């Protein structure tokens, strides 16, 4: 009886001490309208001369679809990297789910990244593994068993309508590679999807299908932030556009 009580106490302490992922933490205030992502006067400087972001402020609400547009070097990718904590601001604050990203401990940082899906510019697909194994990877990292990761990966592939469960990566077309990266981004059912130029170099049909997918995620309650060259006619109507030029908001 005593040992059971001790075990329960230890378990309770363990649960209480577990690092909290910012995306799991309470994100709304009493009124239920606390912002999901906040950029508060953020500046990111690389070396002495290159200014990627200058005094940039932005607020993204939960479930919002945000298009960050601007020419090359305007700071779009830097914004995504700062949200994913792959970079840190030179000054200013970036908050995700109410937590200061630059203040997160290593374990909490891992949990934050596990609960968001990122589609990087170069797709970052592993050539030595097949499509299914590529999509399974984030699920395995998040602690799922191989069986569960396999099940989730197949579901994600089905969600993006990619019928290539065990194809080799070098057999995929450009749009299939982007769809695969998107499937990998949603395999952990993230609360936030970040996509960096997901439709670059794609034909209009492929672009349309990827934009529709991202819009569907947003409709389902997932916050979507997409960096792209410019709002095209295929951009979803519900998307909010944030224009950047030389690291500043273009008015």
């Amino acid at each position, binding site marked *: 009886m005593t040992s059971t009580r001790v075990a329960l106490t230890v378990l309770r302490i363990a649960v209480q001490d577990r690092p909290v992922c910012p995306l799991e933490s309470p994100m709304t205030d009493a009124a239920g309208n606390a912002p999901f992502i906040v950029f508060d006067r953020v500046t990111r400087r690389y070396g002495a001369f290159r200014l990627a972001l200058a005094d940039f402020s932005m607020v993204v609400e939960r479930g919002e679809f945000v298009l960050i547009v601007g020419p090359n070097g305007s700071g779009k990718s830097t914004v995504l990297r700062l949200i*994913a904590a*792959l970079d840190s601001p030179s000054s200013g604050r970036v908050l995700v789910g109410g937590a200061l990203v630059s203040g997160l401990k*290593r*374990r909490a*940082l*891992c*949990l*934050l*990244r*596990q*609960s968001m899906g*990122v589609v*990087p510019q170069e797709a*970052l697909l*592993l050539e*030595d593994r097949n499509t299914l194994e590529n999509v399974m*990877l*984030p699920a*395995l*990292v*998040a*602690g799922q*068993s191989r069986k569960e990761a396999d099940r989730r990966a197949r579901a994600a592939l089905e969600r993006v309508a990619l019928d290539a469960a065990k194809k080799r990566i070098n057999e995929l077309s450009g749009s299939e590679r982007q769809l695969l990266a998107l499937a*990998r981004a949603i395999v*952990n059912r993230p609360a936030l999807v970040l996509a960096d130029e997901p439709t670059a170099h794609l034909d209009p049909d492929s672009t349309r299908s990827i934009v529709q997918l991202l819009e569907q995620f947003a409709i389902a309650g997932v916050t979507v932030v997409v960096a792209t060259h410019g709002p095209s006619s295929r951009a979803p109507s519900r998307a909010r556009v944030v224009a950047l030029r030389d690291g500043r908001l273009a008015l």
Partner: protein
Amino acid sequence: MSWRSTNAYALRRAGLLLWRRPLLALATVLYATTSLALVLSVALLWLGLAPAFTRLPANPEISIFVVHGTSDHELKVLKGRIELIAGVASVRTVSKDAALADVIRRTPPGFPQAELKRNPLPDVLVATLARDAPSAVIEAATANIRKMTPVNAVYVDLDWHRTLRSNLSVGSRVAVVLAFGGLLVVVGSIVVSVRIHVRASATESELLELVGAGREFVRRPFLFVGGALLGFAGALALSGVWVGWIWLAPELETLEAVPTTRGGGFPIGSEVLGAIWVGCCAVGVLIAWASSHRPHD
């Protein structure tokens, strides 16, 4: 990610890394095995020959011939004075009677011993100095003894002592250089191999970081690669040295220099062999841990 799934993933990745670069794995194991075998051979020879070295008459000795007719009391006083000289470890007396008996014992049959009507040999004191006594101390002690009465003559073979010491010194330095060089090659081969795997897995490491893997998760496959390579090399090197020992054992026993234990068996027990092998695996993991850093880690 749980401990079990982390290790299962890392083991699988490590196996694939080695499988996909068999020539690299082979070359690393070959270099590491050869170098480890060299280090182990040097260590075994050192262990085996150390008792023989201690039996060598390596301590410098000064023979002191006293004048004829010296009384036992005078001899005892002289012995006491010599014992007080700096660098002298002990002094023993070889009486003229004992010396004569030894000479007679060594003379061939037919030698006219009757001609030795009177013992012509003097009493001798033999002063033994410390094994590592420098030449200056030996020379100073010799000069000091030479001035004492009733000393007739003093003899010291400083050249033998110097030759022996320099040979031992050169031998031990060569052994240290060989062992150090061997260890350097072992470490170098594992470092190079792990670095090649780290560079070849750059995309995967970047992706893993992106999807929330911790540094330990990203680096663990490389640690397994390092441990496996050095563990395999260690097992091969130990087997090679063991076979070499079996092959050379009869010759080594006839030298009577190597104290082979219990009927000429391998001088290292199975527990120590196991510990060396486990040590190889652990060192391999440590080397891989030190060399699997990425620039922004």
